[in-house]
């Protein structure tokens, strides 16, 4: 959704046309759900969190001034919800464990990823990163947010985000290489 569309939506919502909020949900729920799946590594938890995210967005839509994009704002809420959830309940489920344990049904979000070896390796490498680095890479490369938008979501300076992004890529690189060599060994044996 473009900035102009965002502004139009915000104006409509501030004028009291609350039915416009369903358009916000339709436009952004998929991206927010995927982001939360990557953060929580738990599909069911992500579903709960996405509902909480849009619930909070609905409550606070009157105070949203449009200084950031709607997408950034929703990511910020989702990230805060996830962190709040972590504080109250620590979940140590491994991402790939949940991926591999999940049944292959039409609604399984990991089905497509599991069918692709390279994607599987990348996801496995991402899973081995620390949560802070993984969040950064997911926000930038998978969610498509700019450095400036990530800085708003994570509430950190722009320069810090750039530096941390480079560090996260450095950490990911050897993990991807190892996964590839492991995979090649398995194939030849």
């Amino acid at each position, binding site marked *: 959704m473009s900035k102009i569309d965002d502004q139009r939506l915000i104006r409509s*919502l501030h004028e*009291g046309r609350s039915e416009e909020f369903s358009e916000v949900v339709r436009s952004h729920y998929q991206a927010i*759900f*995927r982001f939360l799946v990557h953060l929580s590594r738990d599909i069911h938890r992500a579903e709960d969190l*996405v509902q909480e995210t*849009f619930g909070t967005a609905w409550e606070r839509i*009157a105070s949203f001034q449009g200084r950031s994009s709607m997408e950034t704002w929703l990511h910020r809420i989702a990230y805060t919800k996830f962190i709040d959830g972590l504080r109250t309940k620590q979940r140590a489920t491994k991402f790939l464990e949940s991926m591999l344990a999940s049944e292959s049904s039409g609604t399984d979000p990991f089905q497509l990823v599991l069918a692709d070896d390279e994607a599987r390796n990348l996801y496995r490498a991402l899973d081995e990163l620390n949560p802070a680095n993984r969040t950064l890479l997911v926000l930038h490369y998978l969610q498509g947010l700019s450095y400036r938008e990530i800085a708003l979501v994570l509430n950190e300076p722009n320069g810090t985000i750039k530096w941390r992004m480079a560090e996260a890529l450095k950490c990911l690189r050897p993990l991807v290489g190892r996964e590839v060599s492991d995979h090649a060994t398995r194939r030849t044996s």
Partner: protein
Amino acid sequence: MQPEEQVDFDGFPESLERRLRNLPKLSVPNDLEARLLSAIPCADLISIPNSMRTSRLSRTLMSAGFAAACLVMVLLLPKLEDLVSMLLVAVRPGQSGSDHNRLVERSDDTLQIDTGFQDPRLIMSVETQSFTWPIHQKSPLMVSSKIPDDLLD
């Protein structure tokens, strides 16, 4: 001739960044949208309060104006009370109570004086006081006034 693909040091023809960008997107449960939309409250039940629609600047200006008005009232209140008491003293004894109030109200529209809110002691002193017109009122003793000789040692 096709351009040579950049080979990453981990052995992949694509860079790591490009591969991350090209990762297949996770599918989303089919019923999630319906669940989210059903959770939105009915449009008729929700209205954004008017107070939230006003801008931050206007709210600040209103607050500043209110504070200034309160300050002016606090500063002027003692002077207004003095004026009221002087006017009450100046009323002729033959005048009725309603005329008395009207006179005070005419003298200062901003006061909006109501007899019910006046100090009863002040009213009593006005009623019992006797004097003849014109009034020869002595000026109150001021700090700058000269002290009479009989008061000095």
